């Protein structure tokens, strides 16, 4: 059996936030007991709001951060044991903001050539050839390679970031909100490009977004993250077809589809915002949950298998299904 492209086992990462004068330091739990595996060629979409730990998860998988506990392996090897250059040939990132993630003083072709130069084993001719091929592959002209990032539009810049990520021909790409700084029209172009590249090059993606509608197109499986934990995960069609967790339902309800007359939905999350430095006891989602019961404030629900495939963590769901199975046996 081949090893999963990405395997995360019980990963946990906390940050210490320095308190001010006379204030104690606080601990922010960014990723808490997260486990999953992505098979080669699969795309896991990770969805959640700002501050839920998605980007920390991305950095753990890229080996940019070390977990406090748990294991992270890429193609069967522990990411932190890997040599930097070997790691770069295997896994690469595409970040959210193409305005901040490209060196404003470097020409586009030099930005894309950087991972090749960093390897130190590519001759100039080989570098130029690969860069030109890659620019063409992501839909940029050779002329654009001679420009500065500031002379490109947001969508073109994100294409540069994708070219830079792919120039070493990695097998895994971690995309952290690759389209959220873009217009919807450009977002569609970039999503199409990413889907096409995945198909043609056989890539594996970890695809992070705050918008459920965006991941549906690229992901084979979707995980919903809330305050550091996965609360539901399932194959994409099943998650969209029958969402179970109330948080997943709220995220789906917040997607504004172009249907006039419906108004803006009340997603039922209330006005309290999640604070990763102050995680509530019991189910972390209970202060915002429209169907919370007293039990939810005390006991933490475990991930339980969803019907057919996937997992979800909610007392109300398991309570109901238990009741149903009890009725069935009583008959």
């Amino acid at each position: 059996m081949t090893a999963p492209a990405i395997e995360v086992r019980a990963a946990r990462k906390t940050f210490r936030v320095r308190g001010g004068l006379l204030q104690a330091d606080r601990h922010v739990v960014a990723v808490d007991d997260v486990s999953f595996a992505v098979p080669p060629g699969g795309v896991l979409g990770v969805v959640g709001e700002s501050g839920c730990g998605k980007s920390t998860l991305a950095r753990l998988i890229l080996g940019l951060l070390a977990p406090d506990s748990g294991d992270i392996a890429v193609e069967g090897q522990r990411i932190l044991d890997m040599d930097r250059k070997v790691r770069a040939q295997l896994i690469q990132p595409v970040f959210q903001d193409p305005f901040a993630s490209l060196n404003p003083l470097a020409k586009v072709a030099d930005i894309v050539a950087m991972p090749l130069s960093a390897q130190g084993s590519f001759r100039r001719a080989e570098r130029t050839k690969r860069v030109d091929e890659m620019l063409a592959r992501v839909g940029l002209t050779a002329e654009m390679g001679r420009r500065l990032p500031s002379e490109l539009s947001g969508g073109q810049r994100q294409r540069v970031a994708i070219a830079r990520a792919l120039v070493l021909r990695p097998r895994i790409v971690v995309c952290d909100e690759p389209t959220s700084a873009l217009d919807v029209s450009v977002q569609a172009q970039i999503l199409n490009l990413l889907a096409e590249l995945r198909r043609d090059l056989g890539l594996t993606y970890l695809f992070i977004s705050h918008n459920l509608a965006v991941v549906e197109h690229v992901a084979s499986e979707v995980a919903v993250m809330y305050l550091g934990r996965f609360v539901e995960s399932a194959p994409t069609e099943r998650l969209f077809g029958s969402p179970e967790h109330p948080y997943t339902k709220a995220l789906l309800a917040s997607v504004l589809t172009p249907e006039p007359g419906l108004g803006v939905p009340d997603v039922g999350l209330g006005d309290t915002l999640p604070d990763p430095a102050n995680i509530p006891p019991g189910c972390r989602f209970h202060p915002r949950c429209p169907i919370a019961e007293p039990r939810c404030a005390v006991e933490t629900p475990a991930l339980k298998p969803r019907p057919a495939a996937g997992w979800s963590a909610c007392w109300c769901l398991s309570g109901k299904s238990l009741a149903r199975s009890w009725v069935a046996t009583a008959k």
Partner: protein
Amino acid sequence: MSALLEIEKLEVDFAGRPAGSSTAAVRGASLAVERGETHCLVGESGCGKSVTALAVMNLLARGARRRARRLAFQGEDLQKLSDAGMAELRGNAMAMIFQEPMTSLNPAYTVGSQMTEVLRRHRRASQRAATDRAADLLARVGITAPGLRLGQFPHQLSGGLRQRVMIAMALMCDPQLLIADEPTTALDVTVQAQILRLLASLQRDLGLGLLLITHDLGIVARVATKVSVMYAGEVVESANTAQLFANPKHPYTQGLLRCVPVPGKIRRDQPLGSIPGTVPRIAPGFEGCAFRERCDFADETCRHVIPRHSAGAAHDFLCRLP
């Protein structure tokens, strides 16, 4: 009675650094915002939506030239108004909410001092009265513990809270017209829904005229009364919301609609609808349809003057195709 805000044949040019390379950012755009309605101005980045808003507020950068056949607020000609007269209107009867609340709030002042400044300046209100009003409005926009928030700095607030502060600040002087430029683009979808609900309820309760600028037709469908679709400085289609979505005529409007991802409608690895290419930079004196390079229906006639067709009451569009 005339509309609250009337824009007729607005033109804005930016002078280029090498002389003669100027850009026409807005090219003869017309629209009207009525009292008590939400008018959405929709288009991609670089279409001239924000420049239109800034031209109304007379906040254009130096080097910009503004002309209009008519530019009036509450019947008053804004082109004849002095800088002092305009400053009297801004933040008072007409207020604006910007896209990025982190860069549009001053990081060096507390929320309270920034909010009260508006009322003290325009209404000569006392600090105490202004603080009370600020606290009331923070509560009105759904901020709990307004007293605490007034003493905090912008960096201590989340993105959603900052945008609520911006909205509350815009409401300090009971404006008639609120211009919101991409107010939710920098926010999570869950917070976006909350902020849009808030704007819609304020607009309804206070009878505001709201000019909402966005690139997302999903938002337009849910909040707008009327829509103007803008491309390369021109309003290429305008209609009532229901009409526009039932019968989008301009290829650009149709393209924008295809781009909005709808859950459950997309199969994995089937290409999403998109508009190829980017918005061109247009020099003054450009002729024909600016969308022709990206349009599936373009032909030779698109290089010449494009007629404006009517597709029903208050629905017109700019295309050679009827």
